[in-house]
């Protein structure tokens, strides 16, 4: 396979479930995981005579997103009906936005592996309702329908076909994921399907202007699967083209167990959705004052925050990016720095290093962090004032993590306080010299390499507590005297 001869073109359609309490056109709750059909009212069930009423909270969330990506928020958008028959689509049509979506244009920047920044255009984002679910397991040959999800509000975010690799696609998807959680418009829970995407993938010969025929991989709900599915699909398309075949425009499904995509339906089998404006809903008209009010309510956005971290705390763009990937992590970091104002860089290393590792190990979210920021700041302070060494600090951190106690108490209790008393260090050095007469003689005979041996022995004898700089200095004097 000669990937170098081919260019990959990817566009993503991300479905973000909006974190409203009730559905987009009915008053039913949107809570995940309730027993089947207990969260579907007559509107969700598409009963004769019922009518949709738009949920204002969903509109506000869509506007927030539009403003956050620098898009145009449409002063007037239209809900349309997408008509097709399926048992989990109660009305026989999905209410979506077609010709006039609420969010038009906009962009997000992603950081590439080589440190370059790439801007990815966003074509549009529109509001729509989710369908229900068909259940095929444990029903002895028949199918069940759960309409709890029917009518759940979705924001479909459509990117331009500007992504050039699976990695870029994942970076973009993560960026959107971060943003929607910053804006508190989506819980981002991918396992529950709150954040999922369809990937449009095609390849073309390097340098070609015209796009190749694309396939659409439906409903992928993890970053890893997106990467693998795209990689597989790109490889498959290149293989087909290089063996003289042609790509069929079709919808494909990713099978994570087999790590491959499979054809679901071709364009010829595709529905004619017969879109037309939904006569039950008036055009959605947004007053400039409303848009201004939403704009004023926006939080500091990830990119702005990262830039501030670089400028204000002197962090690298990479560390700033890691810290700001989650609004909660960034807030935690800033709290730590507030308590340890002199240590922004050490704080960044500890938050992205030890703390992130511990959270990851215990499968904890940063919001469930057992270590309050002031405590971590306390540990940083003890390193800064040379009470403990960096190596021992890790031990203290583990003890703090397990017990939730303060650094000072643990240092005290474990007797980990660094020895900085020159006389005390001198006594340890003398003991070590006494115990190792042969090495001492060799050293004095010119075997300089043994200096390291003595440092190690002194540190060991002090159980790591002796101040290393002082040990070095005193050893030099004593060994040569």
């Amino acid at each position, binding site marked *: 396979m000669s990937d170098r001869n081919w260019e990959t073109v990817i566009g993503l359609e991300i479905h973000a479930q909006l974190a409203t309490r009730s559905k987009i056109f009915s008053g039913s709750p949107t809570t995940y995981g309730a027993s089947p059909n207990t969260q579907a009212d007559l509107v969700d069930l598409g009963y004769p005579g019922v009518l949709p009423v738009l949920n204002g909270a969903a509109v506000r969330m869509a506007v927030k997103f539009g403003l956050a990506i620098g898009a145009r928020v449409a002063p007037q958008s239209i809900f349309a009906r997408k008509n097709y028959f399926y048992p989990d689509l*109660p009305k026989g049509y999905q209410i979506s936005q077609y010709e006039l979506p609420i969010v038009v244009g906009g962009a997000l920047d992603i950081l590439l592996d080589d440190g370059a920044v790439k801007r990815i255009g966003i074509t549009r984002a529109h509001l729509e309702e989710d369908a229900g679910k068909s259940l095929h397991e444990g029903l002895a040959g028949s199918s069940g329908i759960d309409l709890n999800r029917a009518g759940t509000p979705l924001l479909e975010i459509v990117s331009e076909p500007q992504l050039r690799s699976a990695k870029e696609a994942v970076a973009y998807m993560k960026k959107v994921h971060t943003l929607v959680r910053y804006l508190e418009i989506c819980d981002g829970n991918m396992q529950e399907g709150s954040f999922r995407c369809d990937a449009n993938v095609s390849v073309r010969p390097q340098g070609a202007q015209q796009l190749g025929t694309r396939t659409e991989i439906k409903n992928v709900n993890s970053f890893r699967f997106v990467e693998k599915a795209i990689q597989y699909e790109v490889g498959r398309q290149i293989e087909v083209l290089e063996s003289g075949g042609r790509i069929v425009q079709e919808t494909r499904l990713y099978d994570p167990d087999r790590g491959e995509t499979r054809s679901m339906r071709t364009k010829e089998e595709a529905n004619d959705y017969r879109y037309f404006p939904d006569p039950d809903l008036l055009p959605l008209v947004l007053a400039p004052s409303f848009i201004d009010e939403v704009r004023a309510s926006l939080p500091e956005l990830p990119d702005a925050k990262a830039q501030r971290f670089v400028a204000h705390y002197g962090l690298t763009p990479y560390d700033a990016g890691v810290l700001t990937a989650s609004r909660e992590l960034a807030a935690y970091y800033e709290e730590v720095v507030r308590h340890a104002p002199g240590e922004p860089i050490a704080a960044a290393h500890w938050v992205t290093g030890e703390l992130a590792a511990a959270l990851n190990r215990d499968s904890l979210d940063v919001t469930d962090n057992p270590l309050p920021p002031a405590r971590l700041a306390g540990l940083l302070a003890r390193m800064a004032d040379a009470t403990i060494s960096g190596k021992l600090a890790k031990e203290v951190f583990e003890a703090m993590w397990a017990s939730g106690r303060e650094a000072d108490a643990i240092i005290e209790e474990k007797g980990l306080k660094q020895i900085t008393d020159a006389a005390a260090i001198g006594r340890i050095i003398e003991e070590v010299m006494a115990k190792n007469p042969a090495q001492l003689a060799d050293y004095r005979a010119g075997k300089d390499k043994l200096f390291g041996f003595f440092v190690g022995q002194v540190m060991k004898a002090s159980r790591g507590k002796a101040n290393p700089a002082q040990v070095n200095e005193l050893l030099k004097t004593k060994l040569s005297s």
Partner: protein
Amino acid sequence: MAALIQKTLAELAAGLRGKQFSSVELARGLLERIEAAQPKLNALITVTRDAALAAAAAADRDIGAGRGGPLTGIPLIHKDIFCTEGVRTSCGSRMLDNFIAPYDATVVARLRSAGMVMLGKANMDEFAMGSSNETSFYGPVRNPWDARLVPGGSSGGSAAAVAARLAPVATATDTGGSIRQPAALCGVTGVKPTYGRVSRYGMIAFASSLDQGGIITASAEDAALVLRAMAGFDPRDSTSVDRPVPDYTAALGRSLAGLKVGLLEEFFDKGLDADNERQIRAALGVFAGLGASLREVSLPSIPLSVPAYYVVAPAECSSNLARYDGVRFGYRCREPRDLLDLYRRTRGEGFGAEVKRRIMTGTYVLSTGYYDAYYLKAQKVRRLIANDFERAFRDVDVIMGPTTPTPAFEIGAKTADPITMYLNDIYTIGANLAGLPALSIPCGFVGKLPVGLQIIGPHFAEERLLTAAHAFQRETDWHRRIPPGYE
């Protein structure tokens, strides 16, 4: 009973309050009339006798306790398109023959809380698609003036029931003339309010942008009283308009002096039956005598209303009726082999021919490649028609003309040719496309058959229309004529 059926709603309310008769007596008397008329007219699909008597008894208790309003204890019939909790709501279709509505339509709830007593559900064309009440799964309704003739449609059951004095009030709906046309053919008063004036929640959708609930009564005075109770903003219907409902009754006594009446050139065309026209012209003379000034107005785009309507309405219906799939409620075919078979046979067996024709037409006009040529073009025509009306209403206060080209026709006469049937709505469709209020009142007879005069007004001018209609009805007695055999 013979005396009671002559009374206006105000007189009935006074009688109830004065204990001259009770709501239970009134309901019982009408239920007997319904029972007697049913084999002849087939005006009702469901009679809710026990619930009616219980509601009437409750109304009597309220009246006895000095509670309730002007409609407490007054019986009515709901068109079977309005959902009524716990009662079959069939929409005239086999598809919903087994459908017990789990909730009340807003109209039903409002009239219920006003103290009105439902006697039953009126027959109608299937899903309100028809102009003769011949498409009902429950068989055609017959015209009380001549049982060989149609009552009009789709609210044929409502119009026939009020004409035969089976109830003083019947709710109805109007998508392209479905209140006014049967009101005209049955010699009763039918009011289609402004689009958005009456909530559509719980009113089973045919064509959502055109459907409007309204009322059929003997007189404009009665209609004014009921309309006030049923109209108004409903947060459950996004297309209902948040605007206060005036006291329509209070305005009824006003003089018509200076009222500018537009006569629609295009409606007095060769399609209008000459005898019908004579009655309409005579009625216009009555308005002139009341001080109104008459002048001709033209709506150049109005001849396009029928083709535009028969694109827009089927398009919306094809989508609105997609929910009848045999999955959650309503008719389901026996032993479907698979999903496709379930859809095909449920819909094939559950819907009648006219409904299927419109679903297919609507599906076609919305399809890729045809959307622009049909649906979009029809929407543009609709805009032109609305503009025409807007222009006309700068010069005149109301527009008057015939409701229908001819009086009632024979059952079966037009079923073979849908186009001939569709042309029955030629004078009524314009008001739906423009969302305007319009009413039809009886204004004379051709032979034994009543003729309807249509009055159309600008948006939210129901008050003006009712005032004009009431002034006419004070001068004439056409609205008091009762079909022979039903006195």
